[in-house]
C-alpha cells in the first residue's frame, strides 16, 4: 500500500470517528484492472477501503452538488480542488459542509494507452512511482508511467491542491511550461473545410451517452439544454449536426470554468478526445485573458462572469 493511501485512510477514519463529516468521498479498488470506483465511506471500517493510485479517474467534485446538506470530505488533487473552489464560487456547495483532503497527484493512467501497448487481455496491473506493469495470459510488460498518463495529466501544471483542510503528502513537483494545444493549433491552421472534417471525424464515434456531461463538475444544471423540450435547442438523433451542436454548446458553457481535469475524456466509452473542443475554448480564454486559469483561488471569478471596461473584444467589428 502506498504512503498516500495510508495517510488518506488515517485522515478519513479520524474525520468519520470524530463525526466531523458524514461521508468521505474517495475511491476504492475496482473489479477490473486499471479502474477504481468512486466510493462513499461512512464509517471507519469503510474508510479502510479508500485508496489512491493512478486509476482514480473522473472528477469527484461532480458528486458534491448532490450531497444534499451532508457534511462531506472529498479527496482532491489539483484539478478536483479547483473544481471545489469553482462550486463554492458558483454557490453550488456550502463551503462549511466541505472538508478537502488534499492529495498531491502524479497523474492518472490512461487505460487505452496501456491496452494498446500489450498483446492481450490485461488481468493484472501494478504501478509504482515510475513504472506500470501489465500482466495477462502469456505476457508481462512494463511501461514508463510517464508514457501512459492521461493526455490531460501529462501536461498538468496544478498537481497539488489549491485549497485544502488537510493534505495527504508533501507537495509533488509541478511541471513548468509544458507543451500545450499542439493538436488544437494543428486544427486551427486548417482551412474551414479541413476544420469541419477534423471535428466531424473526432465526433463520429459519439453515442450521445452524455457521460462527458455527467462526469463534469461544471455540468450541475438540473435540466441540461440538451434535454429541454420547449424550446428544443438541439436535435436528439445521431445526425452529425446535432451531435456537433451538443458538443459545441457544452464546450461553450465551460468557457472560463474548465479546469482541464480531463474527466470528460476519461469517462468517454468511445475514447473521444473531447478536450480538442473544450480545450479550444480554454485556450482562447487563456490567450484573451492574460493567461487566466480557472479557479486557482477563492477570490478570482472567471473572466466571462464579470465586466471590465477594458475587456478584450477581438471579435467585435467597429
Amino acid at each position, binding site marked *: 500500500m502506498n504512503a498516500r493511501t495510508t495517510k488518506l485512510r488515517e485522515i478519513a477514519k479520524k474525520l468519520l470517528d470524530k463525526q466531523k463529516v458524514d461521508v468521505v468521498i474517495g475511491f476504492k479498488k475496482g*473489479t*477490473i484492472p486499471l479502474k477504481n470506483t468512486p466510493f462513499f465511506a461512512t464509517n471507519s471500517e469503510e474508510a479502510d477501503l479508500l485508496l489512491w493510485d493512478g486509476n482514480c479517474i473522473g472528477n469527484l467534485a461532480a458528486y458534491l452538488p448532490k450531497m444534499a446538506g451532508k457534511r462531506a470530505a472529498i479527496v482532491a488533487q489539483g484539478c478536483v480542488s479547483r473544481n471545489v473552489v469553482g462550486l463554492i464560487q458558483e454557490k453550488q456547495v456550502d463551503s462549511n459542509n466541505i472538508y478537502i483532503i488534499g492529495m498531491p497527484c502524479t497523474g492518472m493512467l490512461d487505460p487505452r494507452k496501456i491496452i494498446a501497448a500489450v498483446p492481450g487481455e490485461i488481468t493484472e496491473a501494478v504501478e509504482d512511482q515510475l513504472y506500470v506493469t501489465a500482466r495477462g495470459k502469456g505476457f508481462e510488460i512494463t511501461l514508463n508511467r510517464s508514457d501512459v498518463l492521461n493526455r490531460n495529466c501529462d501536461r498538468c501544471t496544478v498537481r497539488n491542491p489549491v485549497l485544502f483542510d488537510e493534505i495527504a503528502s508533501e507537495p509533488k513537483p509541478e511541471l513548468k511550461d509544458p507543451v500545450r494545444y499542439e493538436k488544437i493549433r494543428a486544427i486551427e491552421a486548417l482551412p474551414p473545410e479541413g476544420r469541419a472534417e477534423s471535428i466531424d471525424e473526432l465526433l463520429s464515434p459519439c453515442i450521445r451517452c452524455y457521460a462527458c456531461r455527467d462526469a463534469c463538475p461544471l455540468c450541475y444544471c438540473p435540466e441540461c439544454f440538451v434535454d429541454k423540450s420547449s424550446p428544443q435547442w438541439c436535435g436528439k438523433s445521431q445526425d452529425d449536426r446535432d451531435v456537433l451542436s451538443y458538443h459545441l454548446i457544452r464546450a461553450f458553457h465551460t468557457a472560463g470554468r474548465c479546469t482541464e481535469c480531463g474527466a470528460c475524456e476519461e469517462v468517454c*466509452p468511445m475514447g473521444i478526445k473531447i478536450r480538442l473542443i473544450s480545450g479550444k475554448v480554454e485556450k482562447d480564454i487563456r490567450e484573451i485573458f492574460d493567461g487566466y486559469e480557472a479557479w486557482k483561488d477563492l477570490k478570482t471569478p472567471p473572466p466571462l462572469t464579470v465586466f471590465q471596461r477594458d475587456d478584450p473584444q477581438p471579435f467585435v467589428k467597429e
Partner: protein
Amino acid sequence: MEYMRLNKKNLAAFIEELKQKCEVWGPVKEGDQVKFAPVSNVSDVDLEQFKNTTMSPKEIFFPQSEIMLSFKREGEGANIYRDEQSVPSKKAIFGIRPCDARAFRILDMIFKNDQFADNYWLTKRDAVTLVGLGCKEPCSTCFCTSVNSHPFDETGLDVMVTDLGEHYLLRVLTKKGRELLAGSHVLREPSEANIEAYKTVRKNAEDAMTVQFGTDKVNGKTVLELFNEDYWQRISEPCLNCSTCSYVCPTCHCFDIQDEVFREGGQRIRNWESCMSWIFTVHATGHNPRPGKKERVRQRFMHKFKYIPMKRDGEIGCVGCGRCVTMCPVNIDVREVVKQMNS
C-alpha cells in the same frame, strides 16, 4: 446435425461465394473500435484477434437513430404520416458472438409481443442470416455461464463456426443457415477427428468459465422484496447517470420517438434512450416516478434480472457479454449487483 469444414486458407474464397448470394458483413476495425460492417476485403476482418465488437451489434437491426415516418406540411396529403420503411437487403453476418446472438433472440421476444410486432426490427432481422463464432477464449469480464448461456450457445444462430486451428468447423443450425451454405465449392465434409476436436474446444471453453453467480434466489423473491432492498442506495452511489451501460448493452432496447421539422416536411425518428436519464420518465406535470439515481439504477437491474424473466418464461435480460463491466466509467459491475440480488 450437419457439419462442414472450411480450411482457413479458403476463407476469402468462401466469403466471395457468400457475396454472390447476399451482402456479407463481418467484424471490421475502425480506428480503435471494432464494428460489424460490409466486408469488402477479407483482410479487413481479423477473426484471430477478434474478441467482440465495441458496441453491441443490436445496432444492425435497431440503429441508434432510425427514421420511422415522414410527413409533408403543405399541399396534398399534408400532415398525414407516411411509412418510411425500406426493404432491407439480404445479408449474412459473419462472426457474431453467441452472447450477442442470444441477445437478438431476447429482443425478438421484446419487439414482438402477444399483440404488436415492431416491423422495423422484424424486417431487418428476417433479412439476416447469422453465422456465429464460438468463443474459444472468453474474456475475464465475460459471464455468460452465469446467465443461462455458454460460450458455444447456439440460440439465435443459423450457423455456428468453431476455430479448430487450421480449419473452421461449421455447424448448420437452421434452414436459413443451410440455404446460405448450399452449393459452396470450398466447404468440405469434416472428419470424425474434426468433430471430436470441436467438442474438445467447446468443452474447454465451457470449463474455463466459472459460474460467477446464480439467479435462482432472484426468481424466488417477489418484485417488492427486491425493490425495497437497502443495497440499491449503495450500488447507485457512484453512478453518473450516463447512458453508457444501456447503449453498449445488447439487450437494452428502450427508445424515444421524436418529430423533427424541416422546411417543407418532417420526419418521425426513433432514438435510443436510457432508463438512466432523468428525462426518461418525467411527466409533463414535472412529477418524476423515478426521481433519483437510486430509482434509475434499480430499474435497469430489476428490468434485466426480474421483470424480463417474469414476463418471458424465465429468460434473463442479460447475456453476460461484459460490455457494461468494461465500459462503465465508474465501474458499477453487474456481476456484483446480481450477487447481492441473489444473496
